């Protein structure tokens, strides 16, 4: 009993509200990192590189969605806004003014954070379904604006001008996809590190409280609205980074695709499939769904796109029936059981 109180005091002083990850988890993490670093040399086909780049990209995008939905409990259906803003910021600056996409990346992040405030301050007062509906509509409105806006290419979109002089400065690699792979890996790793830190911080801790019980959190003195807006900003900034990298990867910006509700919903599906509110759920969801859509496209040709959506639908229904907290919970449960046995 005494020991319990003492450890509580210590925990209070050291701010260790979350236990450190166990050693075996660190070992798995290190092994996974090594595998990811070696991947392009083990699987050398361009298709293998492409698939993995998309997995990493979507893992980052789904994590960004997870920050808002999984941690602060707000379902956004307009996340494609930030994806598109990221892609357009870097491309407009480069195509029109010759500014390096690295600077464009930062501009995109700032614009997306500003957009998150503009959207979040009025809409985050809404709870539950109403926030989802509002973001869905704002998302389509932004898409329509970009489809009509002549200065940014309207419906035909923009091309990223080809620049072969300095690949790292202009963020374009035409010989191989491997540099893109490592860039995406670094971006995703940074994103996940940020979220890991965030989740363990006092801020993240309060977010989970307000997700679980809005009124109780407010009555304890947590400034609920401010926390939600700040979370939305962080999330939008992460999504924007993914947008810039995507633009530099495909070199064509199509507002139909970039601002589509399909992207907003895809990141939702991945997160829910993997496990929303968890750190690794979004990555797991991306690792399941991206290969599914890429392979179905190969096997079934142009119509592959719709078949993969049918499979997504079936998967989501199955997850909702058997694993409402996501695929990751299957593993978590095993680990917990083993722990309690030993």
């Amino acid at each position, binding site marked *: 009993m005494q020991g*319990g109180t003492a450890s509580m005091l210590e925990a209070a002083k050291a701010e260790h509200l979350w236990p450190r990850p166990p050693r075996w988890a660190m070992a798995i993490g290190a092994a996974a990192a090594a595998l990811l670093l070696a991947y392009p040399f083990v699987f050398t086909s361009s298709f293998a590189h492409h698939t993995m780049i998309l997995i990493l990209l979507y893992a980052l995008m789904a994590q960004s969605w997870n920050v808002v939905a999984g941690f602060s409990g707000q379902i956004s259906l307009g996340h494609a806004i930030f994806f598109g803003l990221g892609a357009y910021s870097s491309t407009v600056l480069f195509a029109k003014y010759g500014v390096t996409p690295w600077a464009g990346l930062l501009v995109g992040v700032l614009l997306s954070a500003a957009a998150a405030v503009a959207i979040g301050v009025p809409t985050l007062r809404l709870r539950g379904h109403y926030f989802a509906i509002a973001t869905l509509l704002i998302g389509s409105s932004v898409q329509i604006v970009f489809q009509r806006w002549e200065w940014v290419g309207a419906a035909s979109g923009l091309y990223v001008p080809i620049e072969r002089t300095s690949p790292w400065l202009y963020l374009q690699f035409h010989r191989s996809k491997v540099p893109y792979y490592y860039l995406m890996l670094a971006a995703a790793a940074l994103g996940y590190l940020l979220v890991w830190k965030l989740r363990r911080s006092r801020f993240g801790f309060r977010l989970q409280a307000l997700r679980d019980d809005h009124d109780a959190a*407010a009555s*304890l*003195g947590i400034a609920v609205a401010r926390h939600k807006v700040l979370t939305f900003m962080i999330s939008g900034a992460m999504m924007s980074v993914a947008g810039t990298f995507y633009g530099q990867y495909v070199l064509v910006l199509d507002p139909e695709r970039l601002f589509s509700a399909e992207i907003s919903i895809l990141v939702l599906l991945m997160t829910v499939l993997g496990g929303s509110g968890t750190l690794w759920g979004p990555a797991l969801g991306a690792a399941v769904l991206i290969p599914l859509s890429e392979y179905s496209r190969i096997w079934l040709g142009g119509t592959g796109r719709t078949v993969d959506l049918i499979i997504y639908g079936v998967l989501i229904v199955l997850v909702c029936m058997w694993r409402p907290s996501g695929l990751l919970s299957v593993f978590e449960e095993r680990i917990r059981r083993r722990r309690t046995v030993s």
Partner: protein
Amino acid sequence: MLLEVENLEVAYGDYQVVWGVSLAVAAGESVALLGPNGSGKSTVVNTISGLLPAKAGDIRFNGVSLVDRPTHARAPLGIAHVLERRRVFPHLTVQQNLFLGAWHSAARAARGETAQRIFGLFPRLLERQNQLARTLSGGEQQMLAIGRGLMALPRLLMVDEPFLGLAPQVAQQLQSVFETLKSEGMAILFIEQNVRLALSMAGRGYILEGGRLAIAGPAATLVDSPEVRRIFLGV
């Protein structure tokens, strides 16, 4: 007076449920807010803590008007609100739930010591400190909700139906905790449907009926009042 509520009116949209309610709690005093189901007890307390906006009237705590302060800015003044039906954070541990109670800076600095005090009041919470709150029994969750409220070092503790659905043994244990808090000088505002139980713990009582103040007075006179019997039993 520590808490003064003056002519409070509260409405959900166009639907007004509280009409001109006034009440007061002095420092160190324990007061019961009573009334049948739907008489507006919880609405009054939710308005004091800011979860609902007041339509008219004033709420002062320690002389400071609260009506223009957002919810989160009221807790640091020294008001703890233990919501109805416990409302602990289900996916956080007991310890994490408690620490969330100690959120403003003065409470944060003392939170280790406060937690120790709370574990003294509720030894069960110490045994369960690393368990997720949703795995606790109803009584343990109520202890946690009260403990979390106390972590803010409040001067006024408002508890909404703390005995609802508890086993008699647990209810008794809670009662003795409230006695301890009272003897330490904490002001407590109880919301209860159980008149006898509430009046046995409180010095004074206010009884609401249909959103209006029906009768108020010292606990001893309310217990046997025929008017109170009429309100609750309709006879």
